[in-house]
């Protein structure tokens, strides 16, 4: 069973680089980007808006994590202060 597993892994590892080097169909010759059919082109405005939106979402998510962690720590401090006897 172990031998079979090793043989399978070896076959996959050997075949992967060979497969990766195979040129995908349709890319055997150079095609300038501007000559691509409209269905193959990515609209620039979409990428621009996606980029700026990504920044907003990432920053908002980070702010939310700070707010959540701060709330947790402060709640724990309040709870601990209540448990601690006055000295």
């Amino acid at each position, binding site marked *: 069973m172990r031998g079979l597993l090793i043989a399978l892994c070896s076959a996959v590892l050997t075949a992967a680089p060979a497969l990766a080097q195979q040129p995908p169909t349709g890319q055997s010759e150079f095609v300038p980007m501007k000559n691509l059919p409209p269905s193959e082109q990515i609209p*620039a405005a979409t*990428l*621009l808006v996606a*980029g700026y939106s*990504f920044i907003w979402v*990432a*920053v908002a998510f980070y*702010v939310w994590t700070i707010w959540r962690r701060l709330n947790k*720590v402060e709640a724990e401090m309040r709870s*601990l202060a209540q448990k601690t006897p006055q000295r």
Partner: protein
Amino acid sequence: MRKAFMPLLIVVAVLLAYAPVMIAQGAFEQSMGLVSKIMYFHAPSGMVMLVSAIVCGVASALYLWRKNPAMDRLAMASAELTVLFGVLVIGTGPLWAKKAWGIWWDWEPRLTMTVVGWLIAVSYLFVRKYAGPGSDKLGAALAVFGTANVPFIYLSVNIWRTLHPKTTVVPTLPPGMRGPFWFCALTLFLLYLVLLTARIHLERQQNALDELYLALED
């Protein structure tokens, strides 16, 4: 800094809200077209990431030297922001690259070294969270290495032949691009200051909580 937090927060919110207007009005590079406007927030994100890595490294070096807990808090906050701004620069870059270069990613020096710098910041956070006692000093040493990587990230485009534009692009921007670019750069630097202040406050509260637990044990 704590007194300036709220006014700074309002200013940053206004600038962030106005930034799309500036970007829309800004000029774009002729050969790349509209997508080159990603530069307005991609490049400043990279600048803030590098500044944040330097702050983290310098604060860590000072912590190793002087054992000042405030420096440790600053380093911790900066490391987290290096990761955040690293995500922004690595996330927005491929959107531009796909249109301009025809590929999402290329393992060329600038991109590879940026990923290495980002991974150093991530590893710093992992060390601080999981390495146990002594992780502060171990993390600080790691952060110093992270800072040593910064000049290589910046100069990589001038040293090696890469796909990425050189460092001469920003100082030679035409007037139509200069305004929106520096507006976005200022916005992201102020955002960095706001987030840094909030994150340091969180770290201070965390330290206070740890001290409370220690006092309770005594």
